[in-house]
């Protein structure tokens, strides 16, 4: 079982732990402060009382037994203190005071001091655990008891408003500093995550700044080195592919020319078809290599018209599919993009739908809120083909991945159409994913910044 309130982010977790710690420390501090104030106030009261009780005691002791009643009655002062002489220790409904509290009084009385001969024999302190009333019984040397009953002021540990204000201010300041420091210290982790994400989408993403605390700078440097190695690796492979593609162009051109001299029409057609296929593979490879470092400028284009034009082109090239190519959406929709790259990406997706589904339904869905930051345009390309096995839905975006070999052999294709499309769309800040429709067939969903 996991703790329900355990936050997910590192910053929130760290702040959570630190704030809990802060609360515990402040709570303990407050308790210590309160207890200390209680002790101080009680001690002061006990001192005060001790001075008065001892004064009374000494007066009584120095007085003759006949005059005592009178003296006690006279010296019985104030509403908070009464004294009486008795032949026995104090009898009240109050139980004996707890020992730690009694100690306060005893110590205080010792501190005030009584001259030697008049030292009392015995003392009783009653009052119970509540700090409300205390009864002190002093055994006089001649056997009588002087019983003093005093009211005790309640202790007030929270009496000082300035202290509470200062304490609150300190707590808020500490909490604020904690949150700020945590945010600052975990920021590099967020930056690193964002950089890793960006690298996954585009190997040419800009490097991380190698500054900040030592550990952060080291991590950033390590990350940049890793990114550089990945880039180098991708570049090497891409350059190899591109070089092969370039070198193949001359022999393919020669073969195409030679094919024109084949007298047998059927054979010539077949040779040309083979060469067409070969050329498609080479151009796909070159396109894949080129897209990794596209230099095409961004400009405004009418996405709706582009989609209709691509469907028209597909229909022109494959008249048998023309009746199953549909466009649905607004008649015009302007986006900013790299026109040739975007055209290539969408052509690949439509060609895929036609190849496996015999047709394509293209739907352009403008973003719900136009102009909002992060508003995305959606393009859905549906077909009525057999769909894609669930395990293949992501793998088909891997370069040179070809689903079931037999199916691809028949339909051609190099296994680069979808990776190229995804590369291009991601370079535009969008993406493409494939899914199977519940009613059968596949659906490619393209998202692009509107």
């Amino acid at each position, binding site marked *: 079982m996991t703790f329900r309130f355990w936050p997910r982010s590192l910053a929130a977790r760290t702040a959570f732990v630190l704030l809990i710690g802060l609360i515990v420390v402040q709570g303990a501090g407050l308790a210590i402060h309160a207890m200390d104030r209680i002790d101080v106030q009680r001690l002061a009261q006990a001192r005060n009382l001790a001075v008065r009780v001892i004064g009374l005691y000494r007066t009584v002791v120095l007085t003759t037994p006949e005059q005592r009643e009178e003296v006690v009655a006279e010296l019985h002062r104030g509403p908070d203190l009464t004294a009486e002489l008795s032949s026995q220790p104090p009898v009240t409904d109050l139980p004996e005071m707890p020992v730690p509290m009694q100690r306060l009084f005893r110590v205080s009385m010792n501190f005030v001091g009584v001259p030697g001969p008049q030292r009392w024999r015995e003392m009783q302190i009653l009052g119970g655990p509540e700090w409300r009333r205390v009864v002190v019984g002093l055994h006089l040397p001649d056997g009588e008891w002087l019983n003093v009953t005093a009211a005790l002021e309640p202790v007030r540990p929270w009496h000082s408003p300035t202290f509470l204000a200062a304490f609150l201010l300190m707590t808020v300041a500490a909490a604020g500093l904690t949150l700020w420091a945590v945010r600052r210290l975990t920021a590099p982790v967020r930056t690193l995550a964002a950089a890793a994400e960006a690298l996954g989408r585009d190997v040419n993403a800009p490097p991380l700044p190698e500054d900040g605390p030592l550990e952060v700078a080291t991590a950033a440097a390590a990350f940049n080195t890793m990114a550089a190695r990945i880039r180098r690796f991708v570049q090497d492979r891409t350059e190899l592919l591109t070089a092969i593609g370039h070198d193949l162009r001359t022999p393919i*051109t020669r073969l195409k020319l030679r094919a024109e001299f084949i007298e047998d029409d059927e054979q010539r057609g077949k040779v040309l078809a083979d060469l067409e296929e070969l050329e498609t593979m080479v151009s796909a490879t070159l396109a894949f290599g080129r897209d990794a470092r596209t230099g095409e400028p961004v400009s*405004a284009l009418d996405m709706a018209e582009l989609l209709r034009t691509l469907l028209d082109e597909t229909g022109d090239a494959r008249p048998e599919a023309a009746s199953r190519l549909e466009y649905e959406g607004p008649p015009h929709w302007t986006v900013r993009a790299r026109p040739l790259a975007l055209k290539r990406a969408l052509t690949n997706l439509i060609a895929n739908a036609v190849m496996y589904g015999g047709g394509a339904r293209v739907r352009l869905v403008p973003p719900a809120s136009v102009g909002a930051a992060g508003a995305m345009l959606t393009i859905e390309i549906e077909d009525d083909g057999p769909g894609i096995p669930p395990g293949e839905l992501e793998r088909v975006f891997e370069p040179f991945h070809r689903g079931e070999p037999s199916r691809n052999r028949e339909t051609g294709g190099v296994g680069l159409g979808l990776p190229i499309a995804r590369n291009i769309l991601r370079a535009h800040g969008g993406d493409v994913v494939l899914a199977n429709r519940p009613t059968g067939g596949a659906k490619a969903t393209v998202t692009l910044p509107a």
Partner: protein
Amino acid sequence: MDQPPHIMVVDDDREIRDLLAKFLEKHRIRVTAVRDCRDARRAWANGHYQLVVLDLMLPGEPGLDFARWLRTQSDVPIVMLTAMGEETDRIIGLELGADDYVPKPFNPRELLARIRAVLRRAGDSTAGPRHDGGSRPLRFAGWVLEPARRRLLNPDGVEVALTGGEYDLLLALVERANRVLTRDMLLDLLRGRQAGPFDRAIDVAISRLRRKLEDDGRNAQLIKTVRGGGYVLAATVEHA
């Protein structure tokens, strides 16, 4: 039958040179094939050519430099062979004044069709003004057609996609604005691009162009249908 056109082919691969010469000659085009820019200059000095097919990837002097030099000498149409999909080469080439480009590896029949189309356009120029250089943007009724990038911009500057055939058709109409283009001429432009019957292809392409130019099909103001089989672009065209 009139004289077959004479063209120069500049390509560094001997096999391609020979095969292309043989192929074009089979289709009644006289060919002088040379291997680099030096030989091309020599051949240019010694002959008269209606068109030059120029590979941009040449050893020694780059093809683009030769094209630049050639432009200072003459208005002869140039068809460039570019590396497949190398956009920058293509755009520079067209801005320099190439009349068309064919990516390598090319389909020989497509190259032949392009050569013929360019020759026809060039031949036509004696009768009317040929657009100079072939690559400067053309403005008509607020729209801009950029031959260098083969793209159409609407009055707001937003690119409106065109298929290859639509582009060729629109370029032909814009270059000969206010003159009737026969169906035969337009058919040639689409030949090799379409799989379906050509007659219908023209009508389909025209109707798509009208839609894109927001020209109402039943009451077309921009691309007008001429009775007896032809179309005309009714607009003033200027170089932007």
